[in-house]
C-alpha cells in the first residue's frame, strides 16, 4: 500500500473536516427556517470527498445526486454560492432555483447534481464521451448511492461506457440504506459481480480504509487518463443523520444499534485524527487548521444567512 506522507494526511483531514463543518453549520441552523428546501447532509460520508479533493483537477468533471454537498465542495465548488443556493437566494450557484439538491459550479468542473435517483449517471457518461472525442485525458466522476444502482439507467450507462471505453469513474457510496430501507431487502447479489459482468474494473472499499482507497485512486486515475475505459469504486460508508434533514432519526429503529456503533467507531474524522497524531503531526497544527476552516465556513454562512434574513424574517 502506498505510504501517505504527513502533509497529505493533513490535507485529507482538512478536506473532510471542511465538509463536516459546512454540514454541521447547516444542521445547526436548519431549524431557524431560513434554509427552506429538502437538504441531504453528507455527515459521516466525508472520506470520498476528502480523496476527491486531494486528486482534484478542475478539468476533470463531476455529476452527482441529491446528496451532493460533499462532492461539490470536494471539487472546489464556491462556498458562498453554495450557501446562497441553500438559502434560495438569486446569488446562489443555481440562481436559487435548485436548492440543496441541484448544485453546480462549472468553473471547477462540477457540472450538476440532481434529485431524481440515477438521473445524472448517463449525463456523466455523455460528458465523458465528449472528453474522449475531444482527445482530452480528463475524466468524469459519477457519484451515486447504492439505491441508484437499482435503476435500469445505471446498467445502460455502464454498458455504454464500457462499449466506448469512456473515462468515467463511477463512485458508489454505499451507506447500506435507501431512505429507511436496508440493502438486504433490495439487493440479492453483490454489485461487484454485476460490474464485473460488464468487464469493468471494480474496487471495493470497506471500514473507511482511506489508505487503500488512496492507492485505488492513483491506479484508477492513471487508467482513466490513459483512455482504458470506465472504473467503478464501491465505497462502504455511513450517514450519521436522517436521510433528509438536520436531525438524527435513530429513535425510529430502522438501523440496528450494533450497526450504528460500528460506524460510530469508524468515523472518518476520528480515523484521520488518530493517524495524524501517530504520524507526529502536532495538535496545535491541527487546531490551527480547524480554526481556519471554522472561521471561513462561519463567515460565509453568516454572510449568506444575513442576506436570507432580509428576505425571510425570523419566524420567532
Amino acid at each position, binding site marked *: 500500500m502506498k505510504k501517505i506522507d504527513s502533509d497529505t494526511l493533513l490535507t485529507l483531514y482538512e478536506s473532510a473536516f471542511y465538509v463536516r463543518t459546512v454540514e454541521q453549520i447547516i444542521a445547526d441552523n436548519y431549524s431557524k427556517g431560513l434554509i427552506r428546501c429538502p437538504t441531504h447532509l453528507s455527515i459521516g460520508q466525508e472520506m470520498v470527498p476528502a480523496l476527491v479533493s486531494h486528486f482534484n483537477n478542475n478539468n476533470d468533471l463531476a455529476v452527482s445526486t441529491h446528496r451532493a454537498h460533499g462532492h461539490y465542495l470536494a471539487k472546489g465548488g464556491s462556498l458562498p454560492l453554495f450557501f446562497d443556493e441553500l438559502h434560495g437566494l438569486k446569488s446562489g450557484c443555481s440562481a436559487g*432555483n435548485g436548492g440543496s439538491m441541484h448544485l453546480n459550479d462549472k468553473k471547477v468542473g462540477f457540472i450538476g447534481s440532481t434529485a431524481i435517483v440515477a438521473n445524472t449517471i448517463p449525463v456523466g457518461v455523455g460528458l465523458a464521451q465528449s472528453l474522449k472525442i475531444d482527445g482530452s485525458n480528463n475524466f468524469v466522476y459519477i457519484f451515486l448511492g447504492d439505491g441508484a444502482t437499482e435503476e435500469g439507467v445505471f446498467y445502460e450507462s455502464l454498458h455504454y461506457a464500457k462499449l466506448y471505453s469512456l473515462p468515467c469513474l463511477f463512485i458508489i457510496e454505499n451507506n447500506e440504506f435507501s431512505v429507511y430501507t436496508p440493502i438486504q431487502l433490495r439487493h440479492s447479489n453483490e454489485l461487484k459481480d454485476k460490474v464485473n459482468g460488464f468487464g469493468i474494473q471494480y474496487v471495493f472499499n470497506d471500514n473507511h480504509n482511506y489508505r487503500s482507497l488512496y492507492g485505488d485512486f492513483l491506479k484508477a486515475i492513471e487508467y482513466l487518463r490513459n483512455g482504458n475505459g470506465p472504473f467503478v469504486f464501491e465505497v462502504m460508508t455511513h450517514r450519521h443523520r436522517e436521510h433528509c434533514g438536520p436531525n438524527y432519526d435513530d429513535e425510529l429503529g430502522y438501523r440496528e444499534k450494533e450497526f450504528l456503533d460500528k460506524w460510530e467507531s469508524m468515523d472518518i474524522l476520528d480515523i484521520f485524527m488518530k493517524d495524524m497524531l501517530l504520524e507526529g503531526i502536532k495538535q496545535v497544527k491541527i487546531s490551527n487548521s480547524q480554526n481556519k476552516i471554522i472561521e471561513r465556513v462561519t463567515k460565509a454562512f453568516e454572510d449568506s444567512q444575513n442576506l436570507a434574513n432580509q428576505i425571510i424574517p425570523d419566524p420567532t
Partner: protein
Amino acid sequence: MSLLVTQAINQALDEVLLSKDRSVCIGLGINDPKRIFNTTQNLVEKYGNTRVIEPPTSENALTGIAFGLCLRGYSVCLTHQRLDFSLLSFDQIINTISKWKFMFGEEKQELSCLIRMIVGRGWGQGPTHSQSYHSFLSSLPGLKVLYPFDSDSAYHSVKYGMNSGNPTVLIEHRWLHNSIGDLDKKTSKNKYISSLIKLAAGTSITIFTYGYMVPEAIKATEILKEYNISVDLFVAVDLSDFDLSPLLESLNKTNNITLIECYTLKCSIVNDISTKIITDKKTRLGIDSFNILALEQGHESTSFSKTKTRYNSYIEIVENTLRQLNKEQIYLKKSYYHDIPGEWFKGPF
C-alpha cells in the same frame, strides 16, 4: 365518519387487500417507518410482504411488473412518493398500460392497475419534486386520471382504481393529505366518474376547479357569500372524462366564469374546457366575463422569494372574482409563509 385523506386512502387499500386475495400493493417506502405519509399504515402487518411489497428503486420496471400482475388478474396499486419519480416509468405507462387493451383488441379486459402519484409543493420542492403532469396524462386514451380533493373522493378513487378494470392514475396532492373530511361509503361508487360535482349553488359566477384548489375555492365561495356574491361551484375528480353540460348550463345563467387550474396553463385541463366553452356558440355569445387562474408557465424554483407568487389561494380567487364582477376589492391578509400548508407541515417533503 371523519378521516384524514391519508387515512381514507389507507382504509380503501386495506379493504381491497382484505376482500381480494389477488391484490398487491407496491411502492418505495410502503413498509418503512413513515409508510408513505401514513397511507400504508398496518398493511404489511395484516397482509404480509408478499402482497405489500417494498421494492428496489426501479420505477420503469416496477410499472411493467405491476401491469404484468394485472394481466394475470391481480389488482395492483403502485405508489410513487412524487409524481416526478414516476416520470421514469412513462414508457410503461404510455407505451404499455394505456394502450394494451386497444393494441390487442381486447377492450373488455379487466386491468385494475392503480398508480398513485403524489404531487409535492412548498418547502423548496423545486424543479424535481413538484411537477404535475396530470393534464397530459388525462389526454391518454385508455388511462383514467383521478384527482381527489378530499377524503371521500380519495377513498372512492382508490376503490375505483383497484376494482374497475381500468388502468388508473391517482393524483394525490401532498397538501391535501392532512385535510379532514367525512367518508360516505354508501354513495354510488362511481359518483366521481365521468361527471362534474356541484359543491355550491349560486347565480353571480360559475367557477370550475379540481384537486388542491377545491378547498381554496370552497373557502373563497364562503367569503364571497358575505359580499352577496354567490358562486355556482363545479369540481372534477375524473380528469379524463367529464360531461361539461352542467357547467355550460350554469354559465348560460351566470354569464361569468372562472376556470382554476392546478398547474401551468399550457396544454392543461382548463385550456381544454376553455376550448369546449368557446366552441359552444350559445354559451360563447352570452359570456360577460371569462377568467383563468393558473400557475405561471415555467419550472418551479426552490427559492422562497422566487415562489412567493407562484401558487393561487382563496385570496386570489376572491380578488379575481371581485375584479371580474367590477366590485370593490376587500383586504384579505396573506400568510407570510406561502410555502407551507399549515403548522402541521414541517418539511422537508
